[in-house]
């Protein structure tokens, strides 16, 4: 998430108009920003998700769907549809085995995701982009104003907007609740070594309701925002066209253009100016377009850039990593 001007960045011209965000970026950030631009079939696109992130989503999609179907079928075993599904999976016991298998995959995925986050946070010095902040709240208000006709100003979304953050954190909450209560039911005897027996029916209740909530949330919130509103295939293809970026993540696009424009600079860090308002469109900066036909994931650019930057002054290095650690390979 791009920070608002009120930041610890060098924002001397905060009061001036038009509003711009001035900040120092490191060479690593500039290179990573430049690498986000690709060309597919002659069209310029921006890489939004790495191959790893896309695979994560595939696994999540499959395991979540399986869990939802097999779980609801068990909960509503009396219902003709539930009964049919249970028989389809070969009975309630084998449905349970499938449910547990999918749960194991889901759990493994969650552990991988957290481990990847921790690695990128501590070893790659990347700040999480999914963290909610005040701008999300103000953008929600702006969005509501726009949709109710009180205002014509469309909020400029950054890497992840509040809709996507809500989705993500709902999933995190759901995973924690479902994982814990699911394990409690999976191993009830072991659970009662540490908790009272009364915790099992409570876990059961949590598991049922949270599942219903999660499935309804996916069916409404997620389906609307990524399928119904406008089919967003970036999680499957990995890329977004420039037009899509301009429409849905203009703030991120502005940063990427500003950062990639200075990628050839020789002295680091470099101050860039990222416009914060629609009125002042960013100058048509043409970033170096790499001649790649298919979008390649930005794979661990941290190591490369760290190596290439090893000769940089220690002070600058510190500044890069602690104050402005935004990079293309963000974590969410």
């Amino acid at each position, binding site marked *: 998430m791009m920070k608002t001007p009120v930041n610890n960045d060098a924002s001397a011209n905060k009061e001036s108009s038009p509003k711009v965000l001035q900040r120092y970026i490191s060479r690593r950030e500039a290179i990573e920003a430049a690498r986000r631009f690709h060309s597919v079939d002659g069209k310029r696109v921006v890489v939004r998700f790495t191959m790893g992130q896309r695979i994560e989503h595939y696994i999540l999609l499959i395991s979540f769907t399986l869990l939802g179907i097999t779980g609801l079928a068990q909960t509503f075993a009396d219902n003709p549809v539930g009964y049919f599904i249970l028989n389809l999976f070969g009975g309630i016991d084998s449905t349970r085995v499938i449910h547990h298998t999918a749960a194991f995959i889901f759990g493994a995925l969650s552990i991988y995701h957290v481990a990847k986050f921790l690695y990128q946070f501590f070893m790659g010095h990347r700040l999480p982009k999914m963290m909610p902040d005040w701008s999300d709240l103000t953008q929600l208000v702006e969005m509501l104003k726009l949709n109710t006709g009180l205002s014509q100003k469309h909020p400029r979304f950054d890497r992840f907007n509040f809709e996507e953050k809500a989705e993500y954190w709902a999933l995190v909450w759901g995973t924690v609740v479902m994982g814990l209560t699911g394990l409690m039911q999976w191993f009830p005897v072991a659970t009662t070594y540490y908790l009272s027996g009364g915790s099992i029916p409570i876990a059961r209740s949590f598991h049922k309701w949270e599942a219903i909530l999660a499935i309804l949330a996916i069916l409404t919130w997620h389906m*609307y925002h990524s399928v119904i509103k406008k089919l967003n295939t970036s999680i499957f293809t990995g890329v977004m066209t420039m037009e899509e970026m301009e429409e849905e993540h203009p703030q991120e696009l502005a940063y990427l253009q500003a950062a990639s424009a200075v990628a050839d600079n020789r002295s680091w860090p470099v101050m860039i100016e990222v416009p914060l308002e629609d009125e002042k469109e960013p100058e048509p900066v043409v970033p170096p377009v790499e001649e790649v036909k298919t979008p390649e994931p930005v794979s661990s650019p941290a190591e490369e850039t760290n190596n290439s930057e090893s000769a940089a002054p220690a002070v600058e290095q510190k500044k890069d990593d602690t104050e402005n650690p935004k990079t293309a390979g963000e974590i969410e």
Partner: protein
Amino acid sequence: MKFSRISKIFLISALGLFLFMGFLLAAGGSHPVLAQENATPTSTPAIELTATATPASMSSGGHSDCLGCHSNPNMVGKFTNGETISLYYNETQHADSIHADRGLGCRACHADQGNYPHPMSSEKTCTTCHSNITGGTDSSKNGQLFFDIPLENPRALSLELNETCKRCHQDQAQEVKSSDHERILANGNPYAPVCIDCHGSHDVKPVGERDSPKMCANCHKAAYTAYKSSVHGAALEDNGNPDVPTCGNCHGTHSVKGPAEGNFRADSIELCAKCHADKELMAKYGISTNVFNTYLDDFHGRSVNFSRESNMKVDKATCYDCHGVHNILPPQDKASTVYPANLLHTCQHCHADADITFPQAWLSHKVPDWTDAPVLYAVNLAYIIVIPLLIGGFLIYIALDAYHRISTRRKKAGHK
């Protein structure tokens, strides 16, 4: 923009699956078993008595002819293995029987014996009494007259005569074919019970439902002893309670089955529910009828009920796995398997490693309310409030967003 075919397929299939799950949620339904249970309360008496009783007529079956010989208390039948039975016929026995009421005499059952001399008898039969005619030896001993019966032993005779019952009682004969008793008989045990063992021979009678435990106790002594001390058995023994189940209610009568047979285990939950989900009946004894609902709503019950409906193996706990079978006692009784102090031991039958707090995982057939399970109640309540609020909020946001998008698009189209 372009994206691969696989991605399209994934998107479409994912959307389809989620919509399908939505349909699953939306389609509500009542429990089919309960619905069925309420619709058809069934009770089949052990024996159908349709014909009206006709006055007893001993002579119609040739009684008086037979009594010419068989009123002699010294007549004894001798089997090839040396065993003997009395051939003396005591008229009072038959007088009490249901056959006597219908006017059935000796030949109704002993039709094969025809007239005298009986086809079964040998030449020796005559000389038993009339030894003076042939000058042969008198087979009588101590005044007893021995008649040879060309069968191995009395049981063989019983089994042979038992076939006679099936001529008239065809329905029951059909039912018996699927019984455990018939199976044991077919496996070569001649002492497996047949018609006359339960109903009697000359004193043939229907076995009353309330009398069946004593009848079964003739062989199943251990089961009867346990039953007699159970809450069901004690009520029957004490005051002949008409509501408690007897042997036949659970095991069947002519088609009697043990727990190892067929679907006995799976169907046992319905068996218990037949009475224990009956509000009127349970109100008499102040017993909760939630026992069946709450069982079906829990892990064990839901699994068992599904497996029962789809004829799959039932390996989760049924009613009797916790409450006991013949020795079933009310949960307040200290000897009950579900008495709080005994519960852990009962759980450990399946959950061998279960710890002291484990039994609390079971809510004792209670519907969670504010006093019994406050946390559980609060969780349910919270979700029932939060889910509509949250999803409602999502939907309002979505509706606003969609409305704005559509109206903006129309405006743009209009300008062009």
